[in-house]
């Protein structure tokens, strides 16, 4: 692992320069946490393909860009950003170039005790609330991107839902990237906490204005208490010149339901890594994704589902289409720990290759140390079925439309995994617009 490349050096210098100015710099625990993250990142450097977890995704293109800090509040309008709810968002938090924009946000009316604010505000106003939670699941010992995110830990989203409370409407977090004068990097952190029997839906929108080159290194930390129900969705439509690297780490308690889905459509290089620890009995965990990659896009969906306790169910459905010279990666690992009996794990990965240069690398992995379990996975790769195309064409549907229909139907099966209906409908619509050629 080398730390002599300029991107890494620039990021290290930037983080150490910023440290004293970040919110909560006076708090010893936070100062130490950031310093530890920086120290770790300096040691690890950016991941390379020599590491098994990054075998199929190269961050080389990243090393050719030198990322500076984001410019102060770019003037933007968010009128055109669609909401999950037909009538406009109920709760919307907006971040432009990684910075929270109170002027664009509307937290809306929330049940008593629910905290929805920017992490920057939380650190400045009430740091004790997040003291024990930040860094709890985002452990960075062997994870350079989380270490880097920790070194820059300053802004992002805090959602805290107290015991027994339900937030009915989806909470939308919009992350918008704008074309600055020079490439910039930001490292937002999301901290989503649902206490016992609480329920909430969070939808992350990651968007970029055309032509914007930036690195968005997102870390989401999820803590779901006993019986909590957390629906965590994401639509990624970054600028086609941007790099989107996200890591979502979840710690789930007894009888919790964690339902996460990622719709990956944008960015030149996108990676979403989801790591969930099922640390209680009776948990249901769904980690699914759909992606469409074209041109020279590279999209990577990597998951780890850690069945630490017995009687849990996990389900994973990942489907994608790859066109142009795009490359897609799926790495899914299910671990069943020695005493996690009665585990039910299911994993499906299917890819459609639409062009001669498209490429898929898939690695579905099972690591099982308990005997009374039911675990299966399936993976396929291939092209559109000629018979299906013929069927449609025989009915007078032009070839392009027939293909679009089949591709749409193929991806819809994954979108079906979204449990919240309004979000499911919204994602389906967005997906179909992209497939029809409207970005």
């Amino acid at each position, binding site marked *: 692992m080398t730390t002599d490349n300029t991107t890494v050096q620039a990021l290290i210098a930037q983080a150490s320069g910023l440290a004293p100015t970040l919110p909560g710099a006076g708090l010893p625990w936070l100062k130490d946490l950031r310093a530890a993250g920086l120290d770790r990142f300096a040691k690890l450097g950016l991941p390379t393909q020599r590491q098994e977890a990054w075998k199929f995704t190269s961050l080389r293109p990243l090393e050719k860009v030198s990322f500076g800090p984001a410019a102060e509040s770019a003037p933007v309008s968010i009128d055109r950003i669609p909401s999950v709810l037909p009538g406009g968002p109920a709760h919307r938090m907006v971040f432009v170039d990684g910075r929270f924009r109170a002027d664009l946000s509307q937290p809306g009316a929330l049940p008593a005790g629910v905290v929805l604010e920017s992490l920057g505000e939380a650190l400045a106003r009430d740091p004790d609330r997040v003291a024990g939670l930040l860094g709890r699941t985002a452990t960075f010992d062997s994870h350079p991107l989380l270490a880097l995110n920790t070194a820059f830990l300053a802004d992002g989203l805090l959602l805290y839902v107290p015991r027994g409370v339900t937030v009915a409407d989806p909470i939308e977090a919009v992350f918008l990237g704008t074309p600055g004068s020079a490439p910039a990097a930001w490292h937002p952190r999301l901290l989503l906490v649902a206490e016992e029997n609480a329920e909430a839906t969070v939808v992350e929108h990651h968007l970029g204005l055309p032509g914007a080159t930036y690195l968005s290194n997102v870390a989401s930390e999820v803590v779901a208490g006993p019986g909590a129900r957390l629906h965590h969705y994401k639509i990624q439509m970054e600028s086609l010149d941007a790099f989107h690297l996200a890591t979502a780490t979840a710690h789930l308690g007894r009888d919790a339901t964690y339902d996460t889905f990622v719709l990956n459509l944008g960015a030149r290089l996108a990676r979403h890594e989801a790591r969930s620890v099922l640390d209680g009995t009776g948990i249901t965990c769904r980690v699914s994704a759909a992606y469409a990659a074209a041109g020279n896009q590279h999209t990577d969906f990597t998951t780890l589902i850690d069945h630490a306790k017995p009687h849990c169910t996990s389900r994973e459905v990942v489907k994608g289409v790859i066109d142009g010279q795009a490359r897609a990666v799926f790495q899914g690992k299910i671990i069943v720990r020695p005493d996690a009996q009665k585990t039910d794990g299911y994993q499906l990965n299917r890819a459609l290759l639409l062009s*001669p240069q498209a490429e898929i690398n898939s690695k579905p992995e099972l690591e099982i140390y308990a005997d009374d*379990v039911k*675990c299966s996975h399936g993976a396929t*790769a291939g092209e559109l079925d000629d018979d299906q195309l013929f069927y449609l064409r025989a009915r007078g549907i032009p070839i392009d439309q027939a293909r679009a229909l089949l591709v749409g139907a193929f991806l819809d099966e994954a979108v079906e995994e979204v449990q919240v209906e309004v979000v499911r409908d919204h994602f389906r619509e967005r997906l179909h617009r992209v497939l029809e050629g409207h970005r």
Partner: protein
Amino acid sequence: MAATEQTLDTVRELTEQKYKYGFFTDIESEMAPKGLSEDIVRFISAKKNEPEWLLEWRLKAYRHWLTMPTPDWSMLKYPPIDYQDAYYYAAPKVKEGPKSLDEVDPELLRTYEKLGIPLKEQAILAGVEGAGDTPAIAVDAVFDSVSVATTFKKKLEEKGIIFCSISEAIREHPELVRQYLGSVVPYSDNYYATLNCAVFTDGSFVYIPKGVRCPMELSTYFRINAKNTGQFERTLIIADEGSYVSYLEGCTAPQRDENQLHAAVVELVALDNATIKYSTVQNWYPGDENGKGGIYNFVTKRAACRGKNSKVSWTQVETGSAITWKYPSCILQGDNSVGEFYSVAITNNMQQADTGTKMIHIGKNTRSTIVSKGISAGKAQNTYRGLVRILPKAEGARNHTQCDSLLIGDKCGAHTVPYIESKNRTARVEHEATTAKISEDQLFYCRQRGLSEEDAVSLIVNGFCKEVLKELPMEFAVEAQKLVAISLEGSVG
């Protein structure tokens, strides 16, 4: 499952006499000095009167090996191997190389007889060995570092088939050996293969000429006998255009407390329209129930389907060895070539296996099938690790992979690590894997019909493995079925 007094007794009995090949033959051996160095490489080469080019190749490999790190990516845990604490050459002492079977040391013949390997042609031909219509099998017997006998050579020669030890092939057919040795597994391939290139001692060589269908099964029987020796054999099989050969490989070793190293390389070359069927029943000493002793089995097996319509089929039943590290692979270069991999890997007690295959699709319409059955019992760890790679020019390539794992007991592990890489849209790749345990219903059904618990498990497991076992040649299939049952004895209760 509650263990009754009776099952416990049966288990005790079985574990005590489980490994029936654990005996040691007291035979005088000629050994190279202990340790590994350039001198040892030269010693082995000199012992075998090898040509200069081969010595150079060995030395090149040895020097390269010194620069290589030990691979650590597998899911195997074992203490570092001290490569200086082993003998790299051990040969049963003979005054001169035996000219015919009659001159082979009777002690050796008795050893093979005890193992159930017939080395006496007459006996087989007369039908003494078993039922009257037992098909004849030509055997190359490798004892520690050298091949001690090859049967049916004459009969095979009539058809132009060359079947002999690789040492003999180096002397008698240097042009063939030089052309193909290292052409599938190059000297720099991987840590254990490179070590093998430097110190390989013997192995089998097969050449099937154009258009010839080998009239009998060819077989090599590997036996590690001497203490503290490593066995490094090298097998090279060439099937020329339009030929067919079925090859079997069996292995055993005495029961010892120390671990012994076995690092073999097998290279197969199939030219246009040729078919090679390679079957292995690996039953090296697995160590005792506490994980003491046993063979470390680090094997590189690879086939090159160079010609059009060529086909290579690997079938393996892996029941032995403390550690198995083995990935028989196919490079599907010729258009329409076919690769198959059928595997049963059974690990019990403290055994660890990390095994699977690689199918590299290069040519058009290449097809591969992978069926892997992993069974893990006791405290064993069993990993399937496989790669299916479709290169851009492999139009119409097709792969189907199925790997199933069965867990018996709650202390063992079963893992699946498949890599699927497709760079051609017309290729279709399918992978499915399941993990489960023997269902209570199945057990109950058998028990209700009066089968003992152990017999029931053996029956169910044999059913689980059937898809693979049916690929084995007849004689082996019967043995393999018994082996499956024996390997699992003591795992229930």
